[in-house]
């Protein structure tokens, strides 16, 4: 085992850039694979082994691997969050969930309609927005470090975890917008009786709280292992 020289490392990095990988997670994993392999050979064999590696890691192969990774990361985030959501309905979190439902219902009944809607829906939405900004910023900083390592600021990569995670965080915000603007566009915003409208808001806010808390928990788990 030996350490690669600066020149050899540069050659490996240039090879990586030519593969047009967009996922930072995959790029770093392949980069480590290349270096781990090349470190086992002498400097004389470096060129031969690099060519050998490139025969396996072709651009088409990397693209296929990347597509598979996208699917798996998407599945992994969904699985983590769903597992967390399910855990809210199991002991001892069940007590917390009931406490949350009771508090929300009491709040909804004791306040004036507009104020109660704002108080119920806005905190989790702002929390989700803050999480989006935080995840985006953290990911950006980490990606910058990778770009610096490869000496290629123009490198078009991003964190796949971060991309899918932000999409999941945007989901309830999109539903909120849809729920607000669609009835307005259709002129049916006063169609629902107030009690039904209140019930919808309470239900949606309950979903929002559960979703926000589970999203945050999922991010805490994933941030330890991924580039997000």
């Amino acid at each position, binding site marked *: 085992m030996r350490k690669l020289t600066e020149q050899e490392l540069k050659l490996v990095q240039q090879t990586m850039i030519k593969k047009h990988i967009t996922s930072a997670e995959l790029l770093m*994993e392949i980069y*480590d*694979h290349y270096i781990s392999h090349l470190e086992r050979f002498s400097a004389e064999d470096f060129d031969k082994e690099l060519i050998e590696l490139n025969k396996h890691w072709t651009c088409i192969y990397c693209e296929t691997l990347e597509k598979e990774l996208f699917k798996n990361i998407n599945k992994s985030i969904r699985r983590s969050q769903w597992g967390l959501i399910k855990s809210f309905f199991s002991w001892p979190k069940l007590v917390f969930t009931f406490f949350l439902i009771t508090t929300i219902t009491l709040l909804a009944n004791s306040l004036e309609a507009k104020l109660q809607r704002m108080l119920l829906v806005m905190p989790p939405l702002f929390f989700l927005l803050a999480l989006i900004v935080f995840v985006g910023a953290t990911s950006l900083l980490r990606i910058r470090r990778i770009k610096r390592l490869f000496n290629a600021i123009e490198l078009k990569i991003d964190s796949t975890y971060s991309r899918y995670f932000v999409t999941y965080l945007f989901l309830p915000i999109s539903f909120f917008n849809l729920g607000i603007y669609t009835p307005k566009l259709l002129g049916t915003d006063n169609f629902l009786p107030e009690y039904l409208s209140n019930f919808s808001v309470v239900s949606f806010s309950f979903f929002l709280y559960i979703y926000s808390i589970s999203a945050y928990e999922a991010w805490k788990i994933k941030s330890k292992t991924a580039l997000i």
Partner: protein
Amino acid sequence: MSSNALIKGSLQTIILKLLEENEKMYGYEITQKVKELTAGEIKITEGALYPALHKLEAEGLLTTEIQQVDNRVRKYYSLTKDGQKEVSFKLAELQSFVESMQRIINPGLKPELGI
């Protein structure tokens, strides 16, 4: 060298078994360990290994850990609790398959089967 199709069918079991014995491993290390254990008879290609690792991770059987090595990050894979349970199931499944294959290939060999 063994046929790639044969290896592909038992790749997940190989990965899970190696991780059960080695706590945590990274991709390249897995390929080398398999090569070493089988005296080069089985060579796991990158084309099969990484998709299998990513799939096992997505299924919640593996968890990952990022470690800084020199000037790069290394992704280590290890078994989750579900993964630990799955190892014995997968091994039993493979064992049963091998025994069944032996019955077909060597019909005369019956002692281990209790026949």
